[in-house]
């Protein structure tokens, strides 16, 4: 029973982190119907940006409450710049190209970013320890222990998710986003600068990925160049699970996915070595039988 509760908590923490990435996927897909395969790498470069600041820029002995905000800022800055460059240089020229081109480009961007970091970042050919920029120790609730970093993730992620939801529902730019998602041509006729809206969407995705990257780093204590691809796939699965294009759905899907991964690793056939397989099997089943996910609308056929 204690194990079950512990695994549920572990799954929820993972789900909260994945959810931050999944929001980026789901928003970009909602606006330009592009599976931004490289979004996981935006998360990855954010983690390396925070690692860089903390290791090479900040002086020794800075207390964690001073270092952590700087790391968040660095990660967000790096992620946003990379996301914007990606949109302007790789995706925008392809708007209106044949259907497979943007996906293959996204694949190219993903490989390029991974390899650039792996080859040029000092020591990135092996996993790097992430700076411990948060108090060690854990919160004990009955038989369950949650690391303080896990508590932080479980607090920050839902708050950010709610903030994005409110922003998209209430703000002027948010309204422009929803209009563009519904019908980009009509939105353009109404005077909305859809290129700007798209860029803004990538920026929001970048901010969330950057925050998620630092939370991920301090919780799992090490990063490598593969975390982007791996968690990107998880996040995409979560976004699909919740209904791609839906912000609440992405969060919900991510929590579900975290639970499936940690519970399947504990209880399902094959054990922890096969937990990935269950996640991918879940992805296939969802795509086949309920491609609109929990909260999405059924996809209309696009011309």
């Amino acid at each position, binding site marked *: 029973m204690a194990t079950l509760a512990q695994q549920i908590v572990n799954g929820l923490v993972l789900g909260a982190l994945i959810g931050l990435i999944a929001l980026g996927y789901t928003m970009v897909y909602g606006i330009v119907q592009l*599976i931004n395969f490289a979004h996981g790498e935006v998360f990855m470069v954010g983690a390396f940006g925070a690692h860089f600041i903390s290791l090479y820029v900040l002086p020794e002995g800075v207390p964690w409450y001073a270092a952590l905000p700087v790391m968040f800022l660095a990660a967000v800055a790096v992620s946003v710049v990379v996301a914007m460059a990606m949109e302007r240089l*790789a995706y925008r*020229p*392809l708007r209106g*190209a*044949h*259907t*497979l*081109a*943007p*996906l*293959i*480009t996204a*694949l*190219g*961007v*993903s*490989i*390029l*970013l*991974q*390899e*650039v970091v792996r*080859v040029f970042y000092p020591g990135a050919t092996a996993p790097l320890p992430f700076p411990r920029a948060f108090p060690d120790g854990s919160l004990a609730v009955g038989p369950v222990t949650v690391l303080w970093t896990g508590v932080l993730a479980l607090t920050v992620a839902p708050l950010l998710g709610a903030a994005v939801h409110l922003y998209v529902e209430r703000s002027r730019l948010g309204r422009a986003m929803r209009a563009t998602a519904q019908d980009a041509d009509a939105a353009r006729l109404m005077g909305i600068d859809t290129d700007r809206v798209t860029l803004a969407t990538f920026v929001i995705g970048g901010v969330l990925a950057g925050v998620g990257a630092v939370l991920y780093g301090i919780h799992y204590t090490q990063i490598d160049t593969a975390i982007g*691809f791996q968690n990107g*796939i998880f996040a*995409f699965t979560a976004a*699909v699970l919740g209904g791609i294009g839906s912000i609440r759905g992405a969060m919900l899907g991510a929590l579900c996915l975290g639970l499936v991964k940690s519970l399947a690793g504990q209880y399902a056939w*094959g054990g922890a*070595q*096969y937990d*990935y*397989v269950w996640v*991918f*099997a879940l*992805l*296939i089943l969802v*795509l*086949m*039988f309920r*491609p609109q996910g929990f909260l999405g609308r059924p996809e209309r*056929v696009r011309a």
Partner: protein
Amino acid sequence: MTLDDAKVLVDAPGGRHANPARHRPDLLAWAGAALVLVGALLPWAAFVLPGGAYPDRATLQFFDAPHLVSGFRLHLVLLGLAGLAGRARRPAGIGVVVIAVVHLAFLIGLGAPSAGGPVALVGGVLLVWRRPAVPALSLPLPGRVLAWPALLAAFAGLLWLVSATLTAGGQSRATNPHGGAEFLAFCGFAFALVGVLSAYGVLTWLAALTQRHRIFAFTVMLACALLLPVTGAGTGYWMTVASTIGVYAATAIGLNIVVGLAGLLDLGYVAFLGIGAFTAANLAHSVPFPVAALAGAAVAGFFGVVVGAPTLRVRGDYLAIVTLAFGEIFFRAAQNDIGGLTGGVNAIPGIPPITLFGQAFNQPVGALPGGFLYYGLAVLLVAAAMVVLVNLKHSRTGRAWEAIREDEDVARAMGVRTGRAKILAFLVGATMAGLAGAVFAHKLGTVGYESFDFSESVTLLAAVILGGMGTVPGAVVGASLLFVLPEKLREFSDYRLMLFGLALILIMRFRPRGLVSSS
């Protein structure tokens, strides 16, 4: 229509093209050609390097023996001469620039650049810059009497070019420290050669000839491919490399059916190669190779249908993700030695080589290099895959695939049974990959899960896209490029995947139909 298009339209009838200046000799271009010729004869390295003279006695030589120029200097002389002719100017200039830049970069790295490089570079830039704007020639198609010898000559030339490219710079950095530079410079020359031929319309002409005399051309091509071992590239090392390329090329042709013809993006395709390889590896000790190969193909084909089944419900980007998920499931399962079938991290070692009439395929036959038999098998495999691709492409099924690729809803409305056609595409592609996998297993002798990770799927996809989706020679050209380059440029092996990523982005941006395609 964009502004640029409009400008071209306005320009086209008059303007630059009808400029009477075209008929006057272009002195700057001639000066460029002359500079290239002079550059070829100037010294390139400032002193004799510790590891021996720079390639082709490029050190301190100055007109002492102009009739003895060889290697890249000979290429420069040839390109300089070609640069005198108007149409050839631009490709020749590009070739000169590549050769000069490569050698200059290497010599600057060694700290010994001399006058030859800069002079040739300036000449090359002049040639590129002063290109005349003339449309490509279109040559008339001759009858059979002329066509057959022309095709023979063309494929013999191709054989020479392939062999020369493979052997350029030698096979080992240990014996030739300048091998990387020599190879890259030769690539520049080969590119220029092809470009010059293309500028004179020879390539289009040959393509049309090949199309008309399809069977003859195919036979000659096959014969030329089988003759590679008797050229300079006929060493055991190159036979091994070439047969590996053959296996991947056959796999890429299978992927070309799925992605290129039917337009179903498969991101986990290498799993079928793996399934074929593991099946054959498990059967290797109990049944002869043909049976193991057929079993590998059959099992892979079965899984092809399993993976293809979701295509009935999922399309476009979502389908790509489903195939990616299947690929990852295969990879994880193989990594964990599922059912004791894959050996997990220990791989499956000790797979015996293919044996026919008591002759093991990894042993040399007579004077031919070892690995020749595997090379021959790989060539036959690729040839068979090409025949299947060509015949399918021009069949009812192939037209159905292309209709689905262009617009699935319209295809269905026109009476194409889309579900059956899509599953068939997966079945054929996977079967081909499974067959290739069986050869792969026997050739390597060891099969481990690392050979089938996501980056291999991407490499295969890159081969198909680079060559041109849906074209017949495309997958072979792409696979050859992607597997020869890392072999020749080991000093850049760290950047291999990075360059792939960049290439994918750039090709989608500038040539989304691939390199081979004419459109």
